[in-house]
């Protein structure tokens, strides 16, 4: 709870710092310091909460448990890592650096709300708080027409989805007379009110949009491709992870007992997401666009956790969120250093910048789910969750098949870096700090691949 207040205040501090600062660099430094403070507040929250009793706040608006707090802490940590890695790129996007950072703090506020909401109102507000800054960040590069286009597209389709979400909430309210998500768990599974079922399906569609699951994924490639890369890295990772956490929270806590009604539909969505994401990613020429499609594909795997409705699913989503976020931020950082975002732009990178090529290899390994990287463990846990659920083994096998397809397009980048001739051109020289941070991130990826318990021992 303290973290929600803290992130709002820190965001406002960030805004005012924009008036004071004459240069951009101190702003990044300030943002880093504020994020460290925020991380501290999160840890303080975490140590003050006992693992057993979830705590209800504000007339049951929030229900704070260890999973939520731990997730918040991890996501704040990932944001810190993100700012450390791409802070300098954020400075290059445009004039309003302070505002960009302020918006990131507000997004975090939305993330915190989404991790511990206990009421559909808070879910709605949380999603909006998380989305509106994204629309702005997507369009922050005003010199670039594609960025404005991305922003507008995202906004229009986001608004459409907001309508769908509200419709779902309304229907659920009509069926139960309550916004409290715990009250839905008393819905009877054998003769379920059709109003409630329609509400559940509407909310599922809205979440599918937010996590870019097919057929609501159409915005993802355009928006991710058009937005400034620095912000794509954020949108594709932490924001998406938070949406997944909220998704899981609602569908496990509230609708878990009704799973027989929605599992099939969600399984179809999952299969379609995996298919569309992986197959389309194969044919991309631009690595940035490939990563956009791959983020759709990864969303398909995270949906496994939601389908599973069991305790392992929580662990799965936490590991997946962190593993995927770290690796994606890492690979985007490398991408930003390059001039040319196509595969050809990576040709011969291993000769020119061996370190850059090496760390990208590790990140891509992790995304592809090669053992001893965090990504393997993530995939392992969500698959394990789905296997324990038991009735969807066909989806497990389909997922494995798709995972082996994904290896192809991730390895194309590695092949370009190591096995192709060419002179990859860099946008800007890679500083010592960058190198250090990249190696550190890489180290995290491997560390979590060997000791995944680090992420779970704390719950």
């Amino acid at each position, binding site marked *: 709870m303290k973290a929600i207040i803290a992130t709002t205040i820190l965001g406002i501090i960030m805004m005012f710092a924009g008036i004071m600062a004459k240069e951009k660099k101190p702003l990044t430094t300030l943002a880093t310091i504020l994020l460290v403070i925020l991380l501290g507040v999160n840890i303080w929250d975490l140590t003050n909460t006992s693992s057993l009793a979830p705590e209800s706040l504000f007339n049951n*608006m*929030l229900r704070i448990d260890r999973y939520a707090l731990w997730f918040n802490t991890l996501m704040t940590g990932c944001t810190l890592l993100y700012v450390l890695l791409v802070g300098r790129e954020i400075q290059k996007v*445009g*004039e309003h650096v302070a505002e960009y950072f302020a918006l990131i703090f507000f997004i975090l506020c939305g993330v915190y709300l989404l991790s511990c909401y206990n009421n559909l109102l808070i879910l709605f507000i949380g999603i909006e*708080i998380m989305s*509106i800054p994204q629309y702005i960040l997507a369009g922050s590069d*005003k010199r670039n027409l594609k960025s404005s286009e991305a922003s507008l597209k995202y906004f229009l389709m986001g608004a459409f989805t907001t309508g769908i979400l509200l419709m779902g909430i309304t229907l659920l309210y009509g069926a139960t007379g309550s916004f409290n998500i715990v009250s839905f768990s008393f819905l009877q599974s054998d003769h379920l009110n059709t109003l409630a079922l329609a509400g559940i399906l509407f909310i599922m569609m809205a979440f599918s949009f937010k996590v870019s699951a097919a057929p609501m994924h159409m915005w993802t490639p355009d928006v991710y491709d058009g937005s400034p890369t620095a912000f794509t890295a954020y949108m594709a990772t932490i924001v998406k992870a938070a949406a997944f956490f909220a998704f899981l929270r609602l569908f496990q806590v509230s609708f878990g007992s009704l799973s027989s009604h929605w599992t099939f539909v969600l399984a179809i969505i999952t299969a379609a997401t995996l298919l569309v994401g992986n197959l389309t990613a194969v044919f991309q020429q631009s690595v940035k666009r490939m990563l956009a499609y791959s983020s759709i594909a990864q969303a398909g795997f995270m949906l496994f956790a939601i389908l599973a409705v069991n305790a392992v699913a929580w662990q799965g989503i936490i590991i997946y969120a962190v593993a995927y976020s770290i690796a994606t931020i890492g690979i985007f950082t490398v991408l930003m250093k390059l001039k040319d975002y196509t595969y050809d732009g990576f040709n011969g990178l291993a000769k020119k910048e061996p370190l850059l090529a090496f760390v990208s290899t590790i990140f891509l390994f992790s995304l592809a789910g090669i053992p001893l990287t965090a990504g393997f463990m993530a995939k392992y846990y969500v698959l394990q969750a789905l296997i324990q659920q038991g009735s969807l083994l066909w989806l497990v096998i389909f997922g494995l098949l798709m995972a082996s397809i994904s290896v192809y397009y991730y390895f194309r980048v590695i092949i370009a870096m190591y096995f192709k001739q060419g002179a990859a051109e860099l946008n800007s020289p890679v500083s010592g700090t960058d190198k250090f941070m990249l190696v550190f991130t890489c180290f995290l990826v491997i560390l979590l691949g060997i000791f995944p318990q680090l992420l779970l021992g704390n719950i």
Partner: protein
Amino acid sequence: MSIYEILFWFLTIMAISSALGVILSRNPITSVLFLIVTFFAISGHYILLNAQFLAIVNIIVYAGAIMVLFLFVIMLMNLNADVEPQKGRLLQLAGVIAGGVLFLVILAALKSATVLPLEKTSSDIGLIKNLGRVLFTQFVLPFEISSVLFLSAMIGAIVIGKKEETKNPLTP
């Protein structure tokens, strides 16, 4: 048929037909005017539901402020002419069919739904005083946290709207 029901049906038909008018009219200004009518009809519904405060706010904010803003924008950009490009009839047809099917699917699904019986509450539930009490006790968190939403929207307006200076004193 009581006066209540007459009013209800009148407002409902007005809301739906003017909403259709918003979509169907070619001229943007007509669209906006239809939208204002829609808002008025919905405000009427609020009054029927004993939500006087909401009705007033709806008129002041939406029909008043926002729609006037829309009108200004349309007039300033000189969009009053019928400039909307003709959409392909195929797409129109597809859109109508898709929308219609969605409507039918939901209708068919909800046909069998049981609706909870209405709870009769005291008629002063929509008064500002009661609303304020609920808002500041039970719903204080959503109420307060919305400020973050509006703050970020304001930042957005500034970030997107402000002209980027060509000569840049802040270059790092």
